[in-house]
Protein backbone atom coordinates (compact mmCIF):
# COMPACT_ATOMS: atom_id res chain seq x y z
CA UNK A 1 0.00 0.00 0.00
CA UNK A 2 2.67 2.61 0.71
CA UNK A 3 4.19 1.72 -2.64
CA UNK A 4 1.01 2.57 -4.48
CA UNK A 5 0.66 5.77 -2.50
CA UNK A 6 4.16 6.87 -3.46
CA UNK A 7 3.49 5.94 -7.07
CA UNK A 8 0.23 7.91 -7.19
CA UNK A 9 1.83 10.95 -5.59
CA UNK A 10 4.73 11.07 -8.01
CA UNK A 11 2.56 10.39 -11.04
CA UNK A 12 0.05 13.05 -10.03
CA UNK A 13 2.82 15.61 -9.57
CA UNK A 14 4.40 14.67 -12.92
CA UNK A 15 1.14 14.84 -14.85
CA UNK A 16 -0.10 18.03 -13.20
CA UNK A 17 3.23 19.76 -13.66
CA UNK A 18 3.36 18.78 -17.34
CA UNK A 19 -0.21 19.95 -17.84
CA UNK A 20 0.71 23.31 -16.36
CA UNK A 21 3.82 23.48 -18.52
CA UNK A 22 1.75 23.43 -21.66
CA UNK A 23 -0.94 25.62 -20.14
CA UNK A 24 1.24 28.46 -18.82
CA UNK A 25 1.73 31.60 -20.80
CA UNK A 26 4.86 32.73 -19.00
CA UNK A 27 7.80 30.68 -20.34
CA UNK A 28 9.78 31.12 -17.12
CA UNK A 29 7.07 29.37 -15.12
CA UNK A 30 6.89 26.64 -17.77
CA UNK A 31 10.57 25.85 -17.39
CA UNK A 32 10.36 25.65 -13.60
CA UNK A 33 7.26 23.46 -13.72
CA UNK A 34 9.06 21.15 -16.12
CA UNK A 35 11.88 20.84 -13.59
CA UNK A 36 9.24 19.77 -11.07
CA UNK A 37 7.92 17.22 -13.55
CA UNK A 38 11.42 15.82 -14.04
CA UNK A 39 11.85 15.52 -10.29
CA UNK A 40 8.61 13.54 -10.06
CA UNK A 41 9.66 11.22 -12.89
CA UNK A 42 13.01 10.75 -11.15
CA UNK A 43 11.02 9.58 -8.13
CA UNK A 44 9.22 7.07 -10.37
CA UNK A 45 12.59 5.85 -11.63
CA UNK A 46 13.75 5.25 -8.07
CA UNK A 47 10.64 3.19 -7.54
CA UNK A 48 11.57 1.18 -10.62
CA UNK A 49 14.93 0.24 -9.05
CA UNK A 50 16.93 2.65 -11.20
CA UNK A 51 18.48 5.09 -8.70
CA UNK A 52 21.50 5.91 -10.81
CA UNK A 53 19.31 6.79 -13.77
CA UNK A 54 17.05 8.93 -11.59
CA UNK A 55 20.01 10.98 -10.38
CA UNK A 56 21.47 11.14 -13.87
CA UNK A 57 18.10 12.52 -15.01
CA UNK A 58 18.24 15.19 -12.33
CA UNK A 59 21.85 16.11 -13.06
CA UNK A 60 21.57 16.14 -16.86
CA UNK A 61 18.02 17.30 -17.50
CA UNK A 62 17.08 19.38 -14.48
CA UNK A 63 20.59 20.54 -13.68
CA UNK A 64 21.92 21.34 -17.12
CA UNK A 65 19.36 21.34 -19.93
CA UNK A 66 16.72 23.26 -18.00
CA UNK A 67 19.30 25.81 -16.87
CA UNK A 68 20.14 26.25 -20.54
CA UNK A 69 16.46 26.83 -21.29
CA UNK A 70 16.31 29.30 -18.42
CA UNK A 71 19.30 31.21 -19.76
CA UNK A 72 17.75 31.46 -23.21
CA UNK A 73 14.42 32.61 -21.77
CA UNK A 74 16.19 35.27 -19.72
CA UNK A 75 18.54 36.44 -22.45
CA UNK A 76 15.83 36.71 -25.06
CA UNK A 77 13.47 38.27 -22.52
CA UNK A 78 10.95 35.88 -23.99
CA UNK A 79 7.64 37.64 -24.26
CA UNK A 80 4.52 36.06 -22.94
CA UNK A 81 2.05 35.06 -25.57
CA UNK A 82 -0.50 37.77 -26.00
CA UNK A 83 -3.69 36.62 -24.33
CA UNK A 84 -6.17 38.07 -26.83
CA UNK A 85 -4.49 36.78 -29.96
CA UNK A 86 -3.99 33.44 -28.28
CA UNK A 87 -7.68 33.11 -27.54
CA UNK A 88 -8.77 34.26 -30.97
CA UNK A 89 -6.39 32.15 -33.01
CA UNK A 90 -6.39 29.10 -30.77
CA UNK A 91 -6.44 25.88 -32.80
CA UNK A 92 -9.20 24.46 -30.63
CA UNK A 93 -11.55 27.10 -32.03
CA UNK A 94 -10.99 25.74 -35.50
CA UNK A 95 -13.92 23.39 -36.24
CA UNK A 96 -12.11 20.80 -38.34
CA UNK A 97 -9.24 20.49 -35.88
CA UNK A 98 -11.61 20.09 -32.95
CA UNK A 99 -13.67 17.38 -34.61
CA UNK A 100 -10.70 15.42 -35.84
CA UNK A 101 -8.92 15.74 -32.53
CA UNK A 102 -11.96 14.57 -30.60
CA UNK A 103 -12.39 11.52 -32.82
CA UNK A 104 -8.72 10.61 -32.42
CA UNK A 105 -8.81 11.12 -28.67
CA UNK A 106 -11.92 8.95 -28.24
CA UNK A 107 -10.34 6.26 -30.39
CA UNK A 108 -7.15 6.25 -28.33
CA UNK A 109 -9.00 6.17 -25.01
CA UNK A 110 -11.14 3.23 -26.14
CA UNK A 111 -8.03 1.40 -27.25
CA UNK A 112 -6.29 2.10 -23.94
CA UNK A 113 -9.29 0.85 -22.00
CA UNK A 114 -9.43 -2.32 -24.08
CA UNK A 115 -5.74 -2.98 -23.52
CA UNK A 116 -6.18 -2.56 -19.77
CA UNK A 117 -9.27 -4.75 -19.53
CA UNK A 118 -7.58 -7.66 -21.24
CA UNK A 119 -5.91 -8.50 -17.97
CA UNK A 120 -2.48 -9.42 -19.33
CA UNK A 121 -0.95 -7.20 -16.76
CA UNK A 122 2.45 -7.77 -15.20
CA UNK A 123 2.67 -7.31 -11.49
CA UNK A 124 6.09 -8.89 -11.11
CA UNK A 125 9.12 -8.94 -13.38
CA UNK A 126 8.90 -11.84 -15.79
CA UNK A 127 9.97 -14.95 -13.93
CA UNK A 128 11.96 -12.79 -11.51
CA UNK A 129 14.70 -12.77 -14.04
CA UNK A 130 16.73 -10.16 -12.27
CA UNK A 131 16.17 -8.90 -8.77
CA UNK A 132 16.18 -5.27 -7.85
CA UNK A 133 19.74 -5.65 -6.62
CA UNK A 134 21.13 -6.54 -10.02
CA UNK A 135 19.11 -4.07 -12.02
CA UNK A 136 19.89 -1.16 -9.74
CA UNK A 137 23.60 -1.78 -9.41
CA UNK A 138 25.80 0.78 -11.12
CA UNK A 139 28.46 -1.84 -11.70
CA UNK A 140 26.11 -3.91 -13.85
CA UNK A 141 25.01 -0.82 -15.75
CA UNK A 142 28.59 0.13 -16.49
CA UNK A 143 29.51 -3.38 -17.51
CA UNK A 144 26.69 -3.62 -20.06
CA UNK A 145 27.23 -0.08 -21.28
CA UNK A 146 30.92 -0.55 -21.96
CA UNK A 147 30.79 -4.04 -23.44
CA UNK A 148 27.52 -4.56 -25.32
CA UNK A 149 26.76 -0.95 -26.19
CA UNK A 150 30.25 0.42 -26.64
CA UNK A 151 29.66 1.47 -30.23
CA UNK A 152 26.58 3.49 -29.34
CA UNK A 153 28.53 5.07 -26.48
CA UNK A 154 31.34 6.23 -28.75
CA UNK A 155 28.88 7.40 -31.40
CA UNK A 156 27.04 9.43 -28.76
CA UNK A 157 30.23 11.17 -27.76
CA UNK A 158 30.79 12.24 -31.36
CA UNK A 159 27.17 13.36 -31.51
CA UNK A 160 27.66 15.60 -28.49
CA UNK A 161 30.78 17.08 -30.02
CA UNK A 162 28.93 17.83 -33.25
CA UNK A 163 26.01 19.35 -31.32
CA UNK A 164 28.36 21.54 -29.30
CA UNK A 165 30.11 22.85 -32.40
CA UNK A 166 26.75 23.35 -34.12
CA UNK A 167 25.23 25.24 -31.24
CA UNK A 168 28.20 27.60 -31.02
CA UNK A 169 28.13 28.20 -34.76
CA UNK A 170 24.40 28.83 -34.88
CA UNK A 171 24.24 31.19 -31.97
CA UNK A 172 27.00 33.56 -32.92
CA UNK A 173 26.13 36.91 -34.39
CA UNK A 174 26.50 37.37 -38.11
CA UNK A 175 29.75 38.88 -39.26
CA UNK A 176 31.53 37.96 -36.05
CA UNK A 177 35.04 36.64 -36.36
CA UNK A 178 36.40 33.82 -34.23
Amino acid at each position, binding site marked *: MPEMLVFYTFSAVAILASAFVIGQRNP*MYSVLLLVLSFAAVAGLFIQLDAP*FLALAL*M*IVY*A*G*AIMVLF*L*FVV*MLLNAPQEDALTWDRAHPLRHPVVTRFGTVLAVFLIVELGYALMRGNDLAQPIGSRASGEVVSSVRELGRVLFTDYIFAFEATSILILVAMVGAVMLARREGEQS
Partner: protein
Amino acid sequence: MDLKLAIELGVIGLTFFMLINASALLVLAERKIMGFMQQRYGPYLVGPHGALQPLADILKLLFKEELRPKGADKWLFTLAPILSVTAAFAAFATVPWGAETTLFGLLDTPIKLGVADVNVGLLVIFAITSMGVYGIVLAGWSSNSKYSLFGGLRASAQMISYELSYATSLAAVVLLAGSLSVREIVDSQQGTWLGFLSHWWIFVQPVGFIIYAIAGVAETNRAPFDFPEAEQELVAGYNTEYSSVRFALFPQAEYINMATMSAVASDLYLGGWHGLLPFYTPLDPLIEQYGLGWMVFLAKVSGFLFFYIWMRWTLPRYRYDQLMSFGWKFLLPVSVVNLILTAAGWLYFNA
Protein backbone atom coordinates in the same frame (compact mmCIF):
# COMPACT_ATOMS: atom_id res chain seq x y z
CA MET B 1 7.74 3.62 17.95
CA ASP B 2 10.68 1.50 18.87
CA LEU B 3 13.95 2.86 20.14
CA LYS B 4 15.94 2.45 16.94
CA LEU B 5 13.50 4.47 14.86
CA ALA B 6 13.37 7.18 17.51
CA ILE B 7 17.14 7.40 17.63
CA GLU B 8 17.40 7.50 13.85
CA LEU B 9 14.95 10.38 13.74
CA GLY B 10 16.99 11.99 16.46
CA VAL B 11 20.12 11.66 14.33
CA ILE B 12 18.35 13.36 11.43
CA GLY B 13 17.20 16.18 13.70
CA LEU B 14 20.66 16.51 15.16
CA THR B 15 22.20 16.79 11.70
CA PHE B 16 19.78 19.53 10.73
CA PHE B 17 20.40 21.33 14.02
CA MET B 18 24.17 21.02 13.53
CA LEU B 19 23.90 22.56 10.07
CA ILE B 20 21.94 25.56 11.30
CA ASN B 21 24.41 26.09 14.11
CA ALA B 22 27.24 25.70 11.64
CA SER B 23 25.93 28.54 9.53
CA ALA B 24 25.62 30.77 12.58
CA LEU B 25 29.07 29.87 13.87
CA LEU B 26 30.58 30.39 10.44
CA VAL B 27 29.29 33.96 10.42
CA LEU B 28 31.14 34.54 13.67
CA ALA B 29 34.20 32.54 12.65
CA GLU B 30 34.57 34.41 9.40
CA ARG B 31 34.47 37.81 11.03
CA LYS B 32 36.80 36.85 13.86
CA ILE B 33 39.33 35.17 11.58
CA MET B 34 39.11 38.04 9.14
CA GLY B 35 39.73 40.38 12.05
CA PHE B 36 42.76 38.50 13.29
CA MET B 37 44.20 38.27 9.81
CA GLN B 38 43.81 42.00 9.46
CA GLN B 39 45.48 42.48 12.84
CA ARG B 40 42.45 43.59 14.73
CA TYR B 41 39.91 41.92 16.93
CA GLY B 42 36.73 40.92 15.21
CA PRO B 43 33.36 41.51 16.82
CA TYR B 44 34.06 42.05 20.49
CA LEU B 45 31.11 43.52 22.30
CA VAL B 46 28.19 41.13 22.04
CA GLY B 47 28.68 38.32 24.51
CA PRO B 48 32.06 37.09 25.76
CA HIS B 49 34.63 38.07 23.13
CA GLY B 50 31.87 38.57 20.59
CA ALA B 51 30.57 35.01 20.74
CA LEU B 52 26.91 36.05 20.50
CA GLN B 53 27.45 38.26 17.44
CA PRO B 54 25.53 35.95 15.07
CA LEU B 55 22.51 36.29 17.33
CA ALA B 56 22.70 40.07 17.00
CA ASP B 57 23.09 39.78 13.23
CA ILE B 58 20.09 37.52 12.85
CA LEU B 59 17.92 39.68 15.08
CA LYS B 60 18.85 42.74 13.07
CA LEU B 61 17.99 41.02 9.80
CA LEU B 62 14.69 39.76 11.12
CA PHE B 63 13.57 43.20 12.16
CA LYS B 64 14.34 44.87 8.85
CA GLU B 65 11.61 45.84 6.45
CA GLU B 66 10.64 43.23 3.87
CA LEU B 67 10.92 44.95 0.52
CA ARG B 68 9.92 43.72 -2.85
CA PRO B 69 10.74 45.75 -5.98
CA LYS B 70 7.72 46.87 -7.95
CA GLY B 71 8.38 44.90 -11.09
CA ALA B 72 9.61 41.82 -9.33
CA ASP B 73 7.93 38.57 -10.12
CA LYS B 74 5.70 37.79 -7.17
CA TRP B 75 6.32 34.06 -6.83
CA LEU B 76 9.85 33.75 -8.09
CA PHE B 77 11.17 36.53 -5.86
CA THR B 78 10.26 34.53 -2.77
CA LEU B 79 10.95 31.13 -4.32
CA ALA B 80 14.59 31.86 -5.14
CA PRO B 81 16.04 32.01 -1.60
CA ILE B 82 13.83 29.08 -0.59
CA LEU B 83 15.29 27.00 -3.42
CA SER B 84 18.84 27.99 -2.50
CA VAL B 85 18.48 27.09 1.13
CA THR B 86 16.54 23.88 0.50
CA ALA B 87 19.17 22.63 -1.93
CA ALA B 88 21.92 23.55 0.53
CA PHE B 89 20.36 21.63 3.42
CA ALA B 90 19.21 18.68 1.32
CA ALA B 91 22.68 18.12 -0.11
CA PHE B 92 23.89 17.11 3.33
CA ALA B 93 21.45 14.19 3.37
CA THR B 94 23.85 11.54 2.14
CA VAL B 95 26.97 12.87 3.86
CA PRO B 96 27.87 10.52 6.71
CA TRP B 97 29.45 12.11 9.74
CA GLY B 98 30.27 9.20 11.99
CA ALA B 99 30.92 5.50 12.06
CA GLU B 100 28.29 2.93 12.90
CA THR B 101 27.68 2.98 16.58
CA THR B 102 25.50 1.21 19.08
CA LEU B 103 25.52 4.23 21.35
CA PHE B 104 27.53 2.44 24.01
CA GLY B 105 25.41 -0.67 23.98
CA LEU B 106 22.04 1.07 24.12
CA LEU B 107 20.90 -0.47 20.85
CA ASP B 108 21.09 -4.09 19.70
CA THR B 109 22.02 -3.32 16.10
CA PRO B 110 24.30 -0.42 15.25
CA ILE B 111 22.92 2.63 13.53
CA LYS B 112 24.83 4.71 11.05
CA LEU B 113 25.57 8.28 11.98
CA GLY B 114 24.30 10.21 9.03
CA VAL B 115 20.91 11.06 7.62
CA ALA B 116 20.81 8.40 4.90
CA ASP B 117 23.09 5.87 3.34
CA VAL B 118 22.14 5.36 -0.29
CA ASN B 119 24.28 3.30 -2.59
CA VAL B 120 24.53 6.24 -5.02
CA GLY B 121 25.06 8.79 -2.25
CA LEU B 122 27.75 10.83 -3.97
CA LEU B 123 25.52 11.42 -6.97
CA VAL B 124 22.74 12.63 -4.70
CA ILE B 125 25.04 15.30 -3.30
CA PHE B 126 26.08 16.31 -6.78
CA ALA B 127 22.52 16.39 -8.14
CA ILE B 128 21.16 18.50 -5.29
CA THR B 129 24.12 20.87 -5.46
CA SER B 130 23.34 21.50 -9.12
CA MET B 131 19.79 22.36 -8.07
CA GLY B 132 21.26 25.24 -6.09
CA VAL B 133 22.01 27.03 -9.36
CA TYR B 134 18.29 27.68 -9.78
CA GLY B 135 18.11 29.75 -6.62
CA ILE B 136 20.73 32.16 -7.88
CA VAL B 137 19.41 32.36 -11.43
CA LEU B 138 15.88 33.03 -10.24
CA ALA B 139 17.09 35.59 -7.71
CA GLY B 140 18.89 37.46 -10.44
CA TRP B 141 15.96 37.35 -12.85
CA SER B 142 13.07 38.04 -10.52
CA SER B 143 14.62 41.16 -9.01
CA ASN B 144 13.90 42.98 -12.25
CA SER B 145 17.13 44.93 -12.07
CA LYS B 146 20.14 45.03 -14.37
CA TYR B 147 22.75 44.42 -11.68
CA SER B 148 20.90 41.47 -10.26
CA LEU B 149 20.38 39.89 -13.66
CA PHE B 150 24.03 40.11 -14.63
CA GLY B 151 25.12 38.87 -11.24
CA GLY B 152 22.72 35.97 -11.39
CA LEU B 153 23.69 34.94 -14.91
CA ARG B 154 27.39 35.13 -14.18
CA ALA B 155 27.12 33.25 -10.92
CA SER B 156 25.11 30.43 -12.45
CA ALA B 157 27.38 30.17 -15.51
CA GLN B 158 30.36 29.95 -13.15
CA MET B 159 28.71 27.28 -11.04
CA ILE B 160 27.84 25.15 -14.05
CA SER B 161 31.33 25.45 -15.52
CA TYR B 162 33.04 24.31 -12.35
CA GLU B 163 30.61 21.46 -11.78
CA LEU B 164 32.36 19.51 -14.53
CA SER B 165 35.81 19.53 -12.94
CA TYR B 166 34.15 18.89 -9.59
CA ALA B 167 32.43 15.75 -10.86
CA THR B 168 35.47 14.46 -12.73
CA SER B 169 37.73 14.75 -9.69
CA LEU B 170 35.13 12.91 -7.64
CA ALA B 171 34.93 10.19 -10.29
CA ALA B 172 38.62 9.42 -9.74
CA VAL B 173 38.04 8.79 -6.03
CA VAL B 174 34.99 6.65 -6.82
CA LEU B 175 37.20 4.58 -9.11
CA LEU B 176 39.74 4.02 -6.35
CA ALA B 177 37.19 3.22 -3.66
CA GLY B 178 34.98 1.09 -5.88
CA SER B 179 31.65 2.49 -4.73
CA LEU B 180 29.44 5.53 -5.10
CA SER B 181 28.24 5.39 -1.51
CA VAL B 182 30.07 7.99 0.56
CA ARG B 183 30.07 5.78 3.63
CA GLU B 184 31.85 3.02 1.74
CA ILE B 185 34.37 5.49 0.34
CA VAL B 186 35.18 6.58 3.89
CA ASP B 187 35.42 2.98 5.07
CA SER B 188 37.86 2.24 2.27
CA GLN B 189 40.22 4.71 3.93
CA GLN B 190 40.70 2.62 7.05
CA GLY B 191 44.12 1.42 8.01
CA THR B 192 47.50 2.58 6.89
CA TRP B 193 49.90 2.39 4.03
CA LEU B 194 53.39 1.11 4.65
CA GLY B 195 52.50 0.88 8.29
CA PHE B 196 52.65 4.56 9.15
CA LEU B 197 50.84 6.69 6.54
CA SER B 198 47.07 6.90 6.95
CA HIS B 199 45.18 5.28 4.10
CA TRP B 200 43.75 8.58 2.92
CA TRP B 201 42.98 9.05 -0.75
CA ILE B 202 44.71 12.41 -0.78
CA PHE B 203 48.04 10.62 -0.90
CA VAL B 204 47.05 8.85 -4.12
CA GLN B 205 45.16 11.81 -5.56
CA PRO B 206 46.98 15.00 -4.59
CA VAL B 207 46.12 16.71 -7.87
CA GLY B 208 42.54 15.51 -7.56
CA PHE B 209 42.26 17.02 -4.10
CA ILE B 210 43.54 20.37 -5.29
CA ILE B 211 41.12 20.30 -8.24
CA TYR B 212 38.28 19.40 -5.91
CA ALA B 213 39.15 22.19 -3.50
CA ILE B 214 39.32 24.79 -6.27
CA ALA B 215 36.12 23.59 -7.91
CA GLY B 216 34.39 23.49 -4.52
CA VAL B 217 35.34 27.08 -3.79
CA ALA B 218 34.10 28.13 -7.23
CA GLU B 219 30.87 26.17 -6.79
CA THR B 220 29.96 27.98 -3.61
CA ASN B 221 30.79 31.38 -5.11
CA ARG B 222 33.42 32.11 -2.48
CA ALA B 223 36.55 34.13 -2.96
CA PRO B 224 38.65 34.19 -4.96
CA PHE B 225 35.78 33.25 -7.27
CA ASP B 226 33.12 35.53 -5.87
CA PHE B 227 32.99 38.03 -8.70
CA PRO B 228 29.21 37.75 -9.08
CA GLU B 229 28.56 38.89 -5.56
CA ALA B 230 31.50 41.16 -4.94
CA GLU B 231 30.62 44.45 -3.36
CA GLN B 232 32.91 46.51 -5.49
CA GLU B 233 31.79 45.09 -8.77
CA LEU B 234 28.07 44.67 -9.11
CA VAL B 235 26.72 46.40 -6.05
CA ALA B 236 25.80 43.08 -4.48
CA GLY B 237 25.10 40.99 -7.52
CA TYR B 238 22.07 38.81 -7.45
CA ASN B 239 20.99 39.72 -3.95
CA THR B 240 20.96 43.49 -4.47
CA GLU B 241 17.22 43.86 -4.11
CA TYR B 242 16.74 41.47 -1.25
CA SER B 243 16.27 42.51 2.35
CA SER B 244 15.51 40.98 5.70
CA VAL B 245 14.64 37.31 5.87
CA ARG B 246 14.93 36.62 2.17
CA PHE B 247 18.36 38.13 2.20
CA ALA B 248 19.42 36.20 5.28
CA LEU B 249 18.71 32.93 3.53
CA PHE B 250 21.30 33.56 0.81
CA PRO B 251 24.41 33.78 3.01
CA GLN B 252 23.02 30.93 5.06
CA ALA B 253 22.76 28.81 1.91
CA GLU B 254 26.31 29.82 1.02
CA TYR B 255 27.70 28.80 4.41
CA ILE B 256 25.84 25.50 4.39
CA ASN B 257 27.21 24.82 0.92
CA MET B 258 30.68 25.54 2.26
CA ALA B 259 30.08 23.12 5.10
CA THR B 260 28.85 20.44 2.68
CA MET B 261 31.87 20.87 0.41
CA SER B 262 34.20 20.63 3.38
CA ALA B 263 32.39 17.57 4.68
CA VAL B 264 32.57 15.84 1.31
CA ALA B 265 36.26 16.77 0.97
CA SER B 266 37.07 15.31 4.37
CA ASP B 267 34.97 12.23 3.64
CA LEU B 268 36.50 11.56 0.25
CA TYR B 269 40.09 12.68 0.54
CA LEU B 270 40.97 13.10 4.19
CA GLY B 271 39.64 9.85 5.58
CA GLY B 272 36.41 11.01 7.18
CA TRP B 273 36.35 9.63 10.67
CA HIS B 274 39.32 7.30 10.27
CA GLY B 275 42.76 8.49 11.09
CA LEU B 276 43.17 11.57 13.21
CA LEU B 277 46.45 12.66 11.66
CA PRO B 278 48.04 11.90 8.29
CA PHE B 279 50.25 9.35 9.98
CA TYR B 280 49.40 6.58 12.38
CA THR B 281 49.02 7.55 16.03
CA PRO B 282 48.29 5.27 18.98
CA LEU B 283 45.04 7.22 19.41
CA ASP B 284 43.49 5.65 16.31
CA PRO B 285 42.45 2.28 17.77
CA LEU B 286 41.09 4.09 20.83
CA ILE B 287 38.97 6.32 18.62
CA GLU B 288 37.57 3.31 16.79
CA GLN B 289 36.84 1.54 20.03
CA TYR B 290 35.04 4.35 21.81
CA GLY B 291 33.15 5.57 18.74
CA LEU B 292 34.66 9.07 18.74
CA GLY B 293 35.03 9.19 14.98
CA TRP B 294 32.58 12.03 14.71
CA MET B 295 34.93 14.29 16.64
CA VAL B 296 37.73 13.49 14.20
CA PHE B 297 35.36 14.27 11.34
CA LEU B 298 34.34 17.54 12.97
CA ALA B 299 37.99 18.52 13.40
CA LYS B 300 38.73 17.86 9.73
CA VAL B 301 35.69 19.77 8.52
CA SER B 302 36.59 22.70 10.75
CA GLY B 303 40.13 22.67 9.40
CA PHE B 304 38.84 22.75 5.86
CA LEU B 305 36.43 25.58 6.68
CA PHE B 306 39.29 27.56 8.21
CA PHE B 307 41.16 27.01 4.95
CA TYR B 308 38.13 28.38 3.05
CA ILE B 309 37.97 31.53 5.19
CA TRP B 310 41.74 31.95 5.03
CA MET B 311 41.63 31.83 1.24
CA ARG B 312 38.91 34.44 1.09
CA TRP B 313 40.81 37.07 3.02
CA THR B 314 44.22 36.39 1.51
CA LEU B 315 43.73 36.05 -2.22
CA PRO B 316 42.56 38.72 -4.64
CA ARG B 317 39.54 38.08 -6.71
CA TYR B 318 39.52 36.62 -10.21
CA ARG B 319 37.99 38.68 -12.97
CA TYR B 320 35.06 36.96 -14.59
CA ASP B 321 36.64 36.08 -17.93
CA GLN B 322 39.81 34.89 -16.19
CA LEU B 323 37.61 32.75 -13.97
CA MET B 324 35.76 31.15 -16.87
CA SER B 325 38.86 30.53 -18.96
CA PHE B 326 40.58 29.01 -15.93
CA GLY B 327 37.66 26.68 -15.36
CA TRP B 328 37.28 25.51 -18.93
CA LYS B 329 40.77 25.71 -20.37
CA PHE B 330 42.84 24.59 -17.42
CA LEU B 331 40.89 22.88 -14.67
CA LEU B 332 38.71 20.63 -16.81
CA PRO B 333 41.56 19.19 -18.93
CA VAL B 334 43.66 18.66 -15.80
CA SER B 335 40.84 16.82 -14.05
CA VAL B 336 40.15 14.64 -17.11
CA VAL B 337 43.85 13.74 -17.37
CA ASN B 338 43.79 13.00 -13.64
CA LEU B 339 40.90 10.61 -14.14
CA ILE B 340 42.58 8.87 -17.05
CA LEU B 341 45.86 8.47 -15.17
CA THR B 342 44.03 7.19 -12.10
CA ALA B 343 42.16 4.65 -14.21
CA ALA B 344 45.38 3.54 -15.91
CA GLY B 345 47.19 3.23 -12.59
CA TRP B 346 44.34 1.33 -11.00
CA LEU B 347 44.21 -1.07 -13.93
CA TYR B 348 47.95 -1.59 -13.82
CA PHE B 349 48.08 -2.35 -10.13
CA ASN B 350 44.92 -4.40 -9.99
CA ALA B 351 44.99 -6.31 -13.24
